[in-house]
């Protein structure tokens, strides 16, 4: 027992860790079931079983069904609200299913840099157009960046880049640095815009990742409307300038909503009932008395409103309610800040802006925007230039609203809401109040982003419908279960006691693989399941090698203990060499594959390590303990 103590501790630690990492997955599934059970859809179906649809024209049928669904959804929404933090937490930590299993869209977007560089050039002539044509053709063939290709073309012809870009006195390196920077900005800008739109679109757990220098991958689980998504990703961004509603009016509306939610009949707020005076109440009491102010925190000094990230959905649902809509003036619009602010405890808050619905001015008028450092105050500013037509409008708007705030809104997210200091004529404005240069840069990007900086092409699009995903899960689980059963039965039958030990190890192995997958935030794909099934066979192989060896040693007349010792040590080199090579191959596959194939490579690699552990350590400990307890014979079949 003593010499195995370390190994036993190791095994239990591994099991405990696997449990720890798998618990959120279990928890998340439980929540999901509960929510489905409570959901309007499920109850609606029940209801329709006993209450057939009354006769009505087709056109009103959907409206009727929708209103029923909404009525039935109250329970699930309440359940969600009560457990929001823990549900979100479990979802984040659970094993994610790949798009091939849960359905959704995988899109690879590529910023057309060649087109952008073409647009950026000045003094374009025939030579330039020839060069660009060749570059466009070459770019399709190689991995070399379009910029590098352009430079090569220029060098071949002995032309300086400054003939078309930058200042005429600049040398090639300086122009290249400038263009490289511009390209990077363009890609970042496109990504920022797409991210913003995806956030607005309301997909749960979208992922946006950069791939190489000009591409990015957008993954949208559970989405299948490709036309809509395509428009969302490629359409023109909408930049608007909207006037903020005065704080006192806004607070009154907030109070009206609060009263309505708390069930008070009078919509007029009494002075003594404001949010700030209720300091002695517990949070629960406060939430009951002021349901709206529990979600929307209002800064009593300046009237700014904030909403915690977790409460955003809830607030949006409240604002959509018909009775709430009735107390909100029709020209009011509620918008959130594009980026949350992180407070000390790590909680994230979005600023809530209440603006006039009709924009004062829209996008296209901005001709340029740059982030700069104000030389006198040393703080970051953004300078914005407008077209002559825009400038006239802008002068009128700013002149009429001095002292008020104007929100800069891109695709319905507020990026900044500066105060108008004075009437701005001449079309050049200065925006202050950014916390740092990055924030200023982002705002400049947004202002320039009336349209995507360069055309964005969809180069790859994969869309898996939900029904195929369900089929795939069922197929994967069925074949996994049958395969596993076959192996377990065979091993127990062929190697008897040894087989049982191996079976036990294989079952633990599944546990370990899933645990590691959860710990690394891995994604389970259908090829990944295939990889796991294959791992069962690999896991068994190590045990087969060992047991065959033990059998051989036993036939030469060795004692049980000696045979086990020899069996494990002699089989080890073969097991080690064989599996190292499989690991190499898995790593290479992971490097070169995409999506589902990477999922396969990942489970395969985890599987190899886990099965080595279970085959070499776990079964060994079992036999050692048996021998120590006095067994003189273990049945290896």
């Amino acid at each position: 027992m003593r010499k195995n103590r370390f190994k036993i501790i190791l095994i239990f630690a591994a099991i405990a860790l696997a449990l720890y990492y798998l618990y959120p997955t279990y928890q998340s599934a439980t929540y999901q079931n509960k929510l489905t059970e409570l959901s309007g859809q499920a109850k609606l179906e029940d209801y329709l079983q006993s209450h057939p649809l009354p006769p009505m024209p087709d056109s009103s049928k959907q409206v009727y069904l929708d209103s029923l669904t909404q009525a039935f959804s109250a329970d699930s929404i309440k359940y969600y609200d009560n457990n929001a933090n823990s549900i979100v937490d479990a979802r984040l930590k659970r094993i994610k299913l790949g798009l091939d299993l849960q359905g959704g869209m995988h899109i690879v977007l590529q910023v057309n840099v060649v087109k952008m560089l073409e647009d950026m050039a000045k003094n374009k002539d025939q030579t330039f157009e020839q060069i660009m044509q060749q570059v466009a053709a070459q770019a399709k063939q190689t991995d070399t960046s379009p910029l590098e290709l352009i430079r090569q073309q220029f060098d071949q012809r002995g032309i300086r880049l400054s003939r078309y870009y930058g200042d005429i006195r600049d040398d090639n390196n300086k122009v290249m640095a400038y263009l490289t920077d511009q390209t990077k900005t363009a890609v970042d800008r496109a990504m920022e815009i797409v991210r913003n739109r995806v956030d607005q679109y309301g997909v749960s757990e979208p992922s946006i990742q950069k791939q190489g220098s000009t591409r990015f991958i957008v993954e949208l689980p559970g989405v299948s409307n490709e036309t809509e998504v395509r428009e969302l990703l490629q359409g023109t961004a909408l930049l608007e300038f909207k006037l903020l509603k005065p704080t006192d009016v806004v607070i009154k509306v907030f109070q009206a909503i609060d009263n309505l939610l708390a069930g008070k009949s009078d919509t007029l707020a009494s002075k003594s009932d404001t949010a700030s005076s209720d300091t002695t109440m517990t949070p629960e009491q406060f939430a009951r008395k002021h349901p709206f102010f529990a979600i929307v925190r209002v800064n009593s000094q300046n009237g700014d409103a904030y909403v915690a990230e977790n409460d955003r959905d809830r607030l949006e649902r409240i604002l959509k309610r018909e009775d709430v809509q009735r107390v909100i003036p029709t020209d009011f619009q509620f918008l959130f800040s594009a980026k949350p602010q992180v407070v000390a405890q790590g909680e994230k808050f979005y600023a809530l802006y209440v603006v006039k619905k009709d924009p004062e001015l829209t996008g296209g008028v901005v001709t340029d925007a740059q982030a700069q450092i104000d030389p006198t105050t040393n703080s970051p500013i953004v300078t914005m230039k407008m077209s002559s037509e825009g400038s006239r409008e802008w002068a009128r708007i700013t002149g009429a609203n001095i002292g008020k705030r104007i929100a800069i809104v891109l695709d319905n997210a507020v990026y900044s809401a500066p105060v108008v200091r004075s009437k701005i004529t001449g079309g050049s404005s200065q925006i202050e109040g950014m916390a740092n240069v990055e924030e200023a840069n982002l705002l400049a990007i947004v202002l320039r982003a009336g349209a995507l900086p360069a055309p964005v092409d969809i180069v790859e699009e994969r869309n898996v419908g939900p029904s195929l995903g369900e089929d795939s899960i069922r197929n994967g689980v069925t074949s996994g279960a049958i395969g596993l059963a076959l192996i377990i039965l065979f091993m127990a039958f062929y190697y008897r006691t040894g087989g049982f030990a191996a079976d036990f190890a294989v079952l633990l192995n599944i546990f370990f693989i899933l645990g590691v997958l959860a710990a690394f935030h891995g994604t389970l794909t259908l090829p990944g399941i295939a990889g796991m099934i294959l791992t069962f066979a690999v896991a068994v192989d190590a045990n087969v090698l060992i047991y065959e060896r033990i059998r051989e040693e036993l036939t030469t007349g060795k004692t049980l203990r000696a045979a086990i010792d020899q069996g494990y040590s002699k089989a080890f080199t073969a097991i080690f060499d064989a599996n190292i090579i499989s690991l190499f191959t898995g790593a290479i596959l992971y490097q070169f594959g995409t999506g589902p194939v990477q999922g396969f490579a990942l489970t395969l690699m985890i599987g190899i390590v886990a099965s080595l552990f279970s085959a070499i350590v776990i079964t060994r400990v079992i036999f050692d303990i048996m021998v120590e307890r006095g067994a003189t014979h273990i049945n290896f079949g």
Partner: protein
Amino acid sequence: MRFFPRTNIDFIGKRHIWYTVSASLILLGLITMAIRGLNYGIDFVGGTELTLEFNPVVHIGQVRSALDKIGHGDAEIKTFGAANQLLIRVKASEQGANTSDQIMSQLKSTFPSTQIQLLQENKIGPQIGQELRRDAVMAIFYSLIAILIYVSLRFQFIYAVGAVIALFHDVLITLGAVAIFGWLLPWLNLEINQTMVAAFLTLVAYSMNDTVVIFDRIRENSKIYKGENMIRVMNRSINDTLSRTIITSGTAFAVLLVLLIFGGEVTRGFAFAMLIGVITGTYSSIYVASAIVVDYNVYVKKVDLRLTAAQSPVLEIEKRYEAAAKRA
């Protein structure tokens, strides 16, 4: 329980017969590939591919004529799994930004009373297809290099060469099988896509695994029987590991067969390639990897490995027990 009592099979002696068998199989596959070509999936050629479910089932001919009207008459249309599931594929050169939308709306208007559900859609630009193809080739190339280096470090260089030739053999035979079965049994939907490449890399790993186990035993036995005839040692080693070889490949085969039958359309190509791979990977460890090491010694190093009349082609097992007893 023991399926394989101690065997004394002369594997290596028969190697020249099996060389012919391997060569003919590879040739057959190559000829099929030359004539019929390989069926590349959308990952590698690019294009638009839609998998649709029709309720009730519609006839492929009707779908084709509907697509013909919008200029996609030469689209590839085939059933995918069930009879009411169709896969429609348009080549990259003919796809536009909205090809899939056009096809969907055309089908919906042609079959107004049929419920059409989108199961899957893939749209791959030609450039991406090219890159994925290059990545796949690179992945296989790098893994072969990694194997060559590792095996030369752990064994001798000629063993690494034998192992890598065996891998080429396995890949070629499996490719050939994919071509032949893809042609004879079109409903298997065998095509070269990313998952298939994953299958090829996995079968490379599997075959290597099997080869290393035998090489490891040869290494061990060569130490025990220093100066013994190499053919006899190899035969002994292959016989020693035969039981394990058959059990492991048997379980892998069974599991893959389950996957082929129950795994559904998406993993079918993978399971098929791996099934063939398990067979050829097991076989090539003996008749390619080990056999090449022997023939290198015979023909290049001119070692005389002919057996005397008194020697059996397989080293008698009792010798080892004597050796073991002596050491003890």
